[in-house]
């Protein structure tokens, strides 16, 4: 039965490019689309990085730059958060890694619907254009914070309450359409277009992570979509889904609002928002498992456990959302329920951390750049995860809510950690994408500045949070409302800002490395890391359109046969048969 379906894949019709435009712009090749996603996400990520540097300038050196008014500060905060979470992390991990790795790792010709895949990227590009357009509309982009809580998001006084919020919501809705088209392709490809011998339990963990994250995305983004539609209606035609009557009293000129529920928005937003954390984290988990296994020359410890941990994290991530809303006002039993489920998620997550550690245990570790990033990820993730245990408990969360402790927590666990994996992944797969190695020295410099810088930036924030420094405040000098925290916080904030400038600048090294190595890099060969998974077994490097020769490869083993006792080589690729 299954065998009969393979010719269908092998003879899959491919739209080969005929011109520069169809090769690099409207390409239907999943590898080109992956690079398109990657470049766009990185470009928009650099804008978000700039926004964060503006914020840090104001926080560390208040008033040093007159141009940073409170409005611009809040716009920078909002755009930084939204771009990083959605347009960089989600788009990069799924759009770029997902697109590149799924067909290659599964031994498929391409995604099952290359045309839809191509459209997916262009719709994503459109959402980015709408997002960037918000910088040029009257009033500028929204400054409501990335959570966009109503009523304030659409009331006068919040920057961008007229146009910025509309472009933001519209851009999100368009992004969701793009993600849906891409995501349907990823899932269908993983479920229905694997090669001979590629059982689900032989898939590399990268694919498992991307698969679970895509399922989460398809089920969680609808909530964001619905809340975006409702908020656009509230803003444009004056419905009152989220707007209580009291909102009208702040703004006599605006529509008459009555009877809306701002809490409903928070529920919808976080029903999306919490799975979103795992949409970002699960592909990172998968990719890092592969990086660790390859560069430690050891099979991943507890592969089955790793798979089921991914699945269980995915399932549980849908029943924890209200832990973001402890201070919003909830029935105590509600808080009890969500605190419990939140802490239960720590179990599969801890399993994964133990397994990474045990994979490294007494391994023949090669300290390549990808491996350095992978190890940094595990450590950073543990640090960020542990503070999550604090914040998951209602009684600890309430005083820490909206302080820098929270900022430190989520930047460690879902900001920096996945970024480290993205870096590691790029250093790891760049040779396959371009045929050339990235420069090692520049890479190590980039790694050390980024990894050490992370801790200089975010470690002190835990302390800031404990002494009660609130997040998102424009004024941090000991004046008026913020006079209650010690002057030492000022000094720390200056140090954090300086570190942030250095780390921000160091990212240019990475961009430089990407560009220069494309032409000057050392030729990589087919399999520079001596890895087992299928993407390193393509007949050509970089792989051609269609990936494989006339027949698809046949898989005989899992992706982790490293250092098998009694074998000459320390790795056995997946398509090598067992000895008779």
């Amino acid at each position: 039965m299954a065998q009969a379906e393979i010719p269908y894949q092998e003879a899959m019709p491919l739209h080969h490019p005929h011109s520069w435009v169809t090769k690099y712009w409207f390409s239907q090749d999943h590898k080109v689309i992956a690079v398109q996603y990657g470049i766009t996400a990185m470009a928009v990520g650099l804008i978000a990085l700039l926004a964060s540097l503006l914020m840090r300038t104001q926080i560390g050196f208040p008033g040093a730059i007159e141009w940073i008014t409170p409005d611009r500060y809040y716009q920078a905060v909002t755009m930084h958060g939204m771009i990083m979470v959605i347009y960089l992390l989600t788009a990069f991990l799924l759009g770029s890694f997902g697109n590149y790795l799924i067909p290659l790792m599964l031994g498929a010709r391409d995604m099952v619907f290359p045309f839809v895949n191509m459209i997916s990227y262009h719709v994503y590009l459109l959402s980015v254009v709408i997002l960037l357009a918000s910088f040029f509309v009257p009033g500028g982009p929204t400054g409501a914070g990335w959570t966009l809580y109503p009523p304030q998001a659409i009331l006068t006084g919040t920057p961008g309450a007229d146009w910025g919020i509309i472009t933001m919501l519209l851009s999100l809705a368009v992004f969701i359409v793009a993600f849906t088209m891409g995501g349907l392709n990823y899932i269908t490809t993983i479920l229905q277009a694997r090669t001979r011998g590629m059982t689900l339990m032989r898939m590399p963990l990268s694919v498992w992570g991307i698969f679970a994250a895509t399922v989460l995305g398809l089920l969680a983004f609808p909530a964001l979509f619905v809340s975006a539609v409702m908020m656009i209606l509230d803003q444009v035609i004056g419905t009152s889904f989220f707007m209580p009557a009291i909102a009208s009293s702040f703004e006599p000129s605006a529509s008459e609002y009555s009877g809306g529920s701002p809490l409903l928005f928070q529920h919808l937003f976080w029903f999306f928002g919490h799975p979103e954390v795992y949409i970002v984290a699960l592909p990172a988990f998968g990719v890092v498992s592969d990086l660790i296994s390859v560069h430690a020359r050891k099979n991943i410890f507890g592969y089955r456990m790793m798979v089921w941990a991914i699945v269980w994290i995915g399932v549980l991530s849908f029943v924890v959302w209200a832990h973001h809303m402890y201070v919003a006002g909830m029935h105590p039993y509600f808080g009890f329920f969500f605190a419990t489920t939140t802490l239960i998620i720590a179990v599969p997550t801890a399993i994964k951390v133990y397994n990474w550690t045990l994979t490294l245990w007494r391994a023949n570790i090669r300290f390549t750049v990808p491996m350095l990033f992978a190890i940094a990820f595990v450590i950073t993730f543990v640090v960020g995860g542990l503070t999550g245990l604090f914040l998951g408990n209602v009684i600890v969360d309430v005083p820490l809510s909206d302080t820098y402790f929270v900022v430190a927590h989520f930047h460690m666990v879902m900001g920096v950690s996945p970024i480290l994996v993205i870096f590691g992944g790029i250093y790891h797969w760049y040779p396959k994408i371009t045929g050339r190695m990235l420069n090692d020295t520049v890479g190590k410099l980039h790694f050390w500045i980024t990894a050490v810088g992370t801790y200089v930036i975010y470690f002190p924030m835990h302390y800031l949070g404990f002494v009660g420094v609130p997040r998102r405040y424009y004024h941090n000098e000991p004046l008026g409302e913020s006079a209650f925290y010690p002057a030492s916080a000022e000094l720390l904030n200056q140090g954090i800002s300086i570190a942030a400038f250095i780390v921000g600048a160091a990212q240019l090294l990475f961009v430089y490395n990407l560009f220069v190595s494309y032409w000057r890099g050392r030729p990589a060969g087919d399999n520079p890391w001596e890895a087992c998974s299928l993407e390193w077994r393509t007949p050509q490097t970089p792989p051609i359109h269609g990936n494989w020769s006339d027949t698809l490869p046949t898989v005989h083993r899992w992706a982790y046969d490293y250092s098998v006792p009694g074998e000459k080589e320390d790795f056995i690729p997946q398509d090598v048969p067992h000895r008779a």
Partner: protein
Amino acid sequence: MAQAAAAGHATIFEDWGSDVTTFKGVPWGKAMMWIFLLSDTFIFSCFLISYMTVRITAAEPWPNASEVFSLTMFGAPVPLLLIAIMTFDLITSSGTMALAVNYGYRRDKKKAIRFICATAFFGAVFVGMQAFEWTKLISEGVKPWGNEWGAEQFGACFFMITGFHGMHVSAGVIYLLIVAWRLHKGVYDKTNYEIVEIVGLYWHFVDLVWVFIFAFFYLW
């Protein structure tokens, strides 16, 4: 007994987890449509759950559905008359769709096209009746930002959710006509005509959603 059950479970996992395909004999397009519908289910669920929340937390009393949605016939208000006709129309379209799928698999192209077109016709009639219903309600004073009968969220939810569903029906009509045209052109002649089933899945889904909207808006 327990052992047999365990063995059964093992076989299920082995089947799903086996190489090449998880769902045996399911074409890519059909698998993709099922997954899309799962995602779309979440969109409609979010809409309907939001509607329930808004209705429960509304500050003013909720308008009486059978009063607002009544149609005056021969001088007497008949509650839910139009909606009954609309529902009947849409469910009829599901019937014709099922026939189209059946004829598709029998490779009776002509009849399949005919029934697809009939389905599209019923869908278009549904959208037309919805347009009539909206016009009537708006002229009677039900607006998204307020109405005379009570909570203003009534109009907002109603127009948003039926509008979103109406868009699905309209898109479905276009989709059906495209499939009928391409079927007529012979684009699918090399396949099993599974495209008819795929568009049918979408259509039945849109119908099913209507049943929920009907229950929650008109009967609650």
